[in-house]
């Protein structure tokens, strides 16, 4: 990102209040996107059992309140409508049951084996898995198997409220309906085993579920295949004695089930030879099917559910790819920045480095000012201390606070004041250009303070005749507040490292309005400043590139500027920057296909700038989205460690940038907070610019409220205001 300082717009009267009405929409859109994204991630966390999952298991309880006939009876418990009956599977019939599926790897193989041996079975599916793999549920139904409920996300129901039980059942049912268009009346409680294992805690649940119209199905033989005891052992445990009928418990999900599949492949033919039939439950009991078709609203609700879950899975995948892209971009950019800016610093700091013959000719300094009464004196006086011969032109852009009079009353030599009706900064600069006496023109803001050597350092690169413009090093003067410290880090790290990198790459996108120098002979052919965009400095810089001029960075030309002190001011400043940058990129888009220097810039600089200043920030929110997701749904610790890792990389880069700029490291202490408060502000502003650009909205902005914090340097660095900070606090 390029830094500029704030610029003022012409004080256009706000028209008819319509901008006010637009604003909510602009806020609403990003908000909606964020809410939708959050909802999708929540949904994903939900069907992946990352939320609402309850892994507690009830400890054994006494059994004195469970009816004897249930404890002694068969595995199918009918507690519907007040009944207390048990049913058993007739001899020579086996009902295979598979719990916890469907699983994308193992369930298809189980189904294949069943199909091969022409067997039917019952699958007790969980709602989460059924929602994620609806096709497998459909296939089960199509191939003649029965589906049973196994709750939505597999809690021990004896620990849950009735409300939760109802919800577990209905969500489970919803997923099955969405997947296969049916409802089922079979139910198996999680963590269940034999009928004889019913106790005082689980029996009431069974009764309650019976009252809801479900048959509870437990088992006779438990293969314990989840322990992976070996194929022989699974078969031994699953096989009933003496040709009795049985309900066999197996699992098609929850880990490696290759033993289960292999066991089935032997078990099925073996027992068939011994006269067994493999039916689903209602076939074995000679009862009507447990499935009933669903139509109408319930069916559509189910389908909508499945659709949403599928969408959430895909969106998450897309987001992960996005995160990978942004991660690569961010790190790639850091590496590039470190390498190139290091190279730049080495080059310009080499002993005996010179741009060309020393530039000693006098230059004109243009100070456009709009209502800068508080700052203008500091600004002008700092220029008077310059060690380079200069002529100062203050262009008063229709100020109403007597800015021009203040300058005139200083009675300084070499300072001219030009007044114009309010026409905006580009017009003021053009007027200044027309009145400038020298060929080299320095431009600065009315709230910026130069060091004595700034002008000299800034114009030295013009010793190279190919250089058409020079960017100076803008620094934050008021960096003791939190928001000031954050901007300071951003200026030093982002802007100043960036500028070195762009200098080396030959595609500097912006000369900061606070401190820049131009050849008048370069500006005149391109028509001077233009008010086509909100970022006239970016616009003119790109135009210079296209005209074949070099634009370079003068690191020692430091200018101290007053950064916005409230979120609101910062917001409107950045909004103008990012929207203006987009406008400038769009304005110069034809450079991509042109020939000569324009084409070079269009094919190298422009895409580069677009990628890092306009496109990459679009993906930046993903970092926060995944941070929150990881914190909430886990793995919390890994997420925090990863985030701290990224923070550490940034801290290293920032420390390097601070060292290059010879800044004190203390401000880096606010880096962690910057990452969780400030960065978000920046990309939200960019998102808003995007929306403005896409919806063609108009932009309105206000001038920063100036407080005159930055003063003329007695030494080289402006004094921080320490005392009167209260007038900027929100004191009602």
């Amino acid at each position, binding site marked *: 990102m390029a830094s500029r300082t704030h610029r003022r717009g012409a004080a256009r009267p706000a028209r008819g209040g319509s901008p006010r009405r637009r604003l909510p929409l602009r806020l609403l859109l990003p908000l909606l996107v964020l809410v939708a994204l959050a909802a999708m991630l929540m949904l994903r966390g939900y069907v992946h059992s990352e939320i609402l999952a309850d892994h507690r298991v009830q400890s054994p309880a006494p059994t004195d309140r469970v009816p004897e006939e249930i404890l002694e009876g068969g595995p199918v418990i009918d507690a519907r409508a007040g009944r207390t009956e048990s049913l058993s599977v007739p001899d020579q019939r086996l009902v295979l049951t598979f719990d916890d599926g469907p699983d994308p790897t193992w369930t298809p193989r189980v189904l294949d084996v069943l199909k091969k041996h022409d067997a039917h079975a019952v699958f007790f599916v969980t709602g989460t898995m059924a929602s994620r793999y609806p096709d497998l549920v459909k296939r089960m139904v199509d191939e003649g198997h029965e589906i049973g409920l196994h709750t939505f996300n597999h809690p021990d129901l004896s620990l849950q409220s009735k409300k939760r039980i109802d919800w577990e059942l209905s969500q489970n049912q919803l997923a099955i309906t969405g997947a296969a268009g049916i409802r089922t009346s079979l139910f198996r409680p999680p963590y269940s085993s034999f009928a004889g294992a019913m106790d005082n805690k689980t029996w009431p649940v069974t009764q309650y579920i019976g009252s809801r119209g479900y048959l509870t199905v437990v088992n006779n033989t438990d293969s314990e295949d989840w322990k992976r005891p070996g194929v022989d052992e699974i078969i031994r445990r699953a096989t009933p004695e003496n040709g009795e009928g049985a309900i066999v418990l197996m699992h098609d999900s929850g880990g490696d089930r290759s033993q289960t599949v292999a066991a089935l492949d032997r078990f099925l033919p073996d027992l068939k030879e011994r006269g067994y039939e493999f039916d689903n439950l209602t076939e074995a009991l000679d009862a009507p099917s447990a499935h009933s078709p669903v139509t109408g609203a319930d069916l559509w609700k189910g389908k909508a559910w499945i659709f949403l879950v599928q969408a959430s899975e895909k969106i998450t995948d897309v987001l992960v790819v996005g995160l990978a892209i942004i991660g690569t971009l961010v790190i790639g950019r850091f590496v590039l920045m470190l390498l190139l800016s290091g190279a730049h610093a080495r080059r310009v700091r080499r002993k005996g480095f010179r741009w060309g013959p020393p530039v000693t000719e006098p230059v004109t300094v243009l100070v456009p000012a709009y209502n800068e009464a508080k700052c203008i004196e500091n600004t002008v006086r700092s220029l008077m201390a310059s060690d380079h011969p200069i002529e100062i032109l203050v262009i008063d852009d229709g100020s109403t606070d007597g800015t021009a009079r203040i300058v005139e009353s200083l009675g300084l030599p070499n300072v001219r004041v030009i007044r114009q009706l309010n026409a905006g900064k580009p017009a003021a600069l053009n007027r200044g250009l027309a009145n400038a006496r020298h060929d080299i023109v320095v431009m600065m803001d009315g709230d910026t303070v130069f060091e004595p050597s700034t002008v000299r350092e800034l114009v030295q690169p013009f010793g190279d005749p190919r250089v058409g413009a020079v960017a100076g090093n803008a620094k934050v003067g008021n960096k003791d*507040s*939190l928001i000031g410290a954050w901007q300071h880090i951003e200026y030093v790290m982002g802007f100043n490292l960036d500028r070195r990198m762009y200098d080396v790459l030959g595609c500097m996108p912006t000369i900061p309005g606070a401190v820049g120098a131009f050849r008048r002979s370069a500006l005149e052919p391109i028509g001077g400043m233009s008010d086509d965009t909100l970022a006239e400095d970016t616009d003119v810089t790109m135009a210079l590139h296209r005209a074949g001029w070099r634009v370079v960075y003068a690191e020692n030309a430091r200018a101290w500027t007053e950064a916005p002190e409230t979120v609101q001011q910062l917001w409107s400043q950045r909004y103008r920057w990012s929207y203006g940058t987009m406008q400038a990129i769009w304005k110069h888009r034809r450079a991509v296909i042109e020939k000569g220097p324009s084409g070079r810039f269009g094919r190298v600089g422009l895409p580069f700038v677009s990628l890092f200043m306009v496109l990459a920030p679009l993906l930046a929110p993903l970092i926060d989205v995944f941070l929150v997701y990881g914190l909430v749904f886990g793995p919390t610790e890994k997420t925090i460690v990863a985030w701290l890792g990224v923070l550490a990389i940034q801290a290293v880069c920032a420390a390097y940038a601070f060292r290059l700029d010879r800044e004190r490291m203390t401000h880096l*202490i606010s880096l*962690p*907070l910057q990452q969780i408060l400030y960065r978000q502000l920046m990309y939200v502003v960019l998102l808003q610019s995007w929306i403005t650009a896409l919806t063609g909205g108009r932009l309105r902005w206000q001038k920063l409220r100036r407080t005159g914090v930055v003063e003329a340097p007695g030494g080289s660095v402006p004094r921080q205001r320490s005392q009167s900070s*209260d007038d900027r606090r929100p*004191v009602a």
Partner: protein
Amino acid sequence: MTHGYTTGTGPEPAGPYGPYGTPHAGDPTGAAGMPYAVPRQRTAEPAPAPDPAAAPAAPEKPGRDRYLDLLRSIALVRVVVYHLFGWAWLTVLFPSMGVMFALAGSLMARSLNRPAVSVVRGRLRRLLPPLWAFAAVVLTMMFLNGWNPAKDPDHGDTWGLIGLFNYLVPIGAPPYPWHIGSPSGLLEDTWAVQAAGPLWYLRAYLWFVLASPLLLWLFRRAPWPTLLAPLGLTAVVGTGLVTIPGETGNAVTDFAVYGGCWVLGFAHQEGLLKQIPRYVSVSCASLVMAFGLWWASNHLGPDGWDLNDIPLAQATWSFGFVVILLQYSPSWRELPGRLKRWDRLVTLSNNRAVTIYLWHNLLIMATIPIVDLLYRLPFMQSERGVEALSSTYTIWMFALVWPLIGLMVLAVGWVEDLAAKRRPRLWPNGAKRSAGRRSGRTGAAHRG
């Protein structure tokens, strides 16, 4: 005037404090089982204690820092809500206790420009009469229920009697029975625990007041060590590294946990915070808070994230939180913008902070028999009616406790004025004339 108060909180600012209920006293296990419908009360909770002394300042006078008043009111409301609903996350959302102690410390530092003895005496004079009023009622109820402190199994014989002195001057935690009455009585049999629990705050406040002349002397000589020492002490006595047994241990731990906030009040008053660039203080504070959260996540208590059970987390989180609140302290002469409509309530709660703090837990208990009356209503006899009422029980308690607090302010609030040597007022919400009284009252009832 970045901070502190501007001119005065009134003639004699006293330490704001809020007593919170805490059950450290006595039994480490906390409150005994409560009936199902009622959420468990936190007995040991830091409720922000209103500050008896600050309250006395005449509210109408210009010069009160309404920002600090607002913080005190928020802290107070948060304490009541926390004690009622028992939501652990409230202790993270707003560490009321730390805020209250910081406000009190700041006022104390300001007062200590006068001779220390008279300041301490003034503080005690304002603190004790409201406590006596409360103790008179609670002790009468306990004795009528047949409690004999000399025979209480939890308190030795003579020590139990001597401990009663703490109802007069809460230099230690006063004794109370863990169970009194019968579980089927009008109040739960743990009501005494609930009622007396908040008294730990008075003890802590008293300790701080007595220690303040020395603390301030230390602070002026060595600001940073004095500021950070309580955190260090918490790391020693609040983490199990060193365990001081019994009630003394609780008192020392409280002193350490909130000592940092109290001294922060000094730092605010003395302008130390102003000297530090804001980015430094806020960044460091958030690092301290991050440490607190990290510590808490590794030392979750019986109620999860309830910082009251995690001394070091409470100390660090409160410390950082208070630094940020005081760093931004804007010194409002009056509440700005939309906050203005809360003006009277803020004034009232500041003027009656001690009363509200002392009585709120008992009043929360008192809502239960009243809400229970709803079960007798004819249209509540169906199963659905009962279920609807049970599932919304705390909401009814919540709605009811505010009018009860209002009544209690009317009944005993004037004691605070007497203690401050002022003309007793019935409803000091800053409104002119009695016309304000009615509106203020209903307002109080609705607010939560």
